[in-house]
């Protein structure tokens, strides 16, 4: 039984960390702000729960398990909202999604 648990948690952790790194690299490589928001979104909203489930599988039933679940729920609630709010604010901030020209001159001012 716990072999299955071990395997599952290992898989989750692996997938989580892989997504993490791809998100990070995406954050650096992608040219435009809005594509970076997407990359950051991937890591925050997908890699985080994967890693936390991996962690939960390894822990035995205790108050701590409940707390990790709480953290996961909290992250799931806040991160998408934060990314959404950021994208909306950026849009309001006059930075069109994919007009490259706006990207250059906007970059110089702020």
């Amino acid at each position: 039984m716990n072999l299955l648990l071990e395997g599952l948690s290992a898989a989750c952790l692996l997938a989580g960390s892989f997504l993490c790194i791809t998100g990070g690299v995406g954050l650096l490589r992608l040219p435009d702000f809005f594509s970076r928001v997407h990359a950051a979104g991937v890591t925050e909203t997908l890699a985080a729960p994967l890693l936390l489930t991996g962690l939960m599988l390894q822990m035995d039933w205790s108050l701590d398990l409940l707390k990790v679940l709480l953290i996961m729920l909290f992250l799931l609630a806040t991160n998408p909202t934060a990314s959404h709010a950021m994208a909306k604010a950026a849009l309001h901030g006059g930075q069109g999604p994919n007009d490259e020209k706006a990207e250059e001159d906007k970059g110089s001012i702020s």
Partner: protein
Amino acid sequence: MRDLFAVAMMFGIYSLLTAALFMDLDAADVAFTEAAVGAGVTTILLLSSLRLTGRWERRPKHSPLLPLLVVGVTGAALVYGTLDMPHLGDPQAPVHQHVAPHYIENAPQEMGIPNIVTAVLASYRGFDTLGETLVIFTAGLSVFLLLGSRAGGRPRPGKTAIGEQPVLRLVVKVLIPFILLFALYVQLHGEYGAGGGFQAGVIFATGMVLYDLVFGEGDARLVVPARWLPRLAAFGILVYGSVGLYALLHGRPFLDYTVLAEDPMVGRHLGILLVELGIGICVFAVVLSIFYALSGRRRQP
């Protein structure tokens, strides 16, 4: 790094890393406080004052030679001082021989609560904590003296802070009860794990600040009007002071909690709980009043 907003964010990251370092050095309570205060309150206060004083910094004109010299001398004195220090974490260091072992051995018998830090904070060195609460009260008082609670015009009810963010408003509406509940948990959990009056007060205030940020401070001031806050802070301190004075009436030295109940253990429990409550109220009122004073002020060019 001339964009002060970025500096404020970097400072948030710095205090976050300090909190992680405290975790690694087995200081759960301190990491908790540093995270709640350093990354939370300080960053928010910095941002709200940067809003008032402008975001950009000019290149300093004068040469950095003298400061470098002073810093060099102080640094040399510090390094000179560290040469005879015991290594990191070696148990024979004098620090662990003299006063600390008493706390670790006697706290369970005398206090009966697992979190020794709260035991030392509230009872052994309770007078320090009274001083600490007074420092926070003084800060709130000073900001009140400087910026005045009614400054910056009347609150603008209903003005949404971040343009039209329906999604954000909905999620925040769901989250705030959870945050306030978490603050209550931290307040009462002080004796068993990391937490206590001070951290709880900060989390309460952060919850209210979040409400203020998203729904515009007009609504927030309707919930907790700014006029009450100085009095609330004063009430928090008087709760702490009266617990101490109560011991005086019974002829015991100040801040001796054993008078609160027949069995000294129960008395100390009660004393610590009351004291933490006093701190929580005071810190909540002060942090929120400072935030109101800064965020409510109109921008004078």
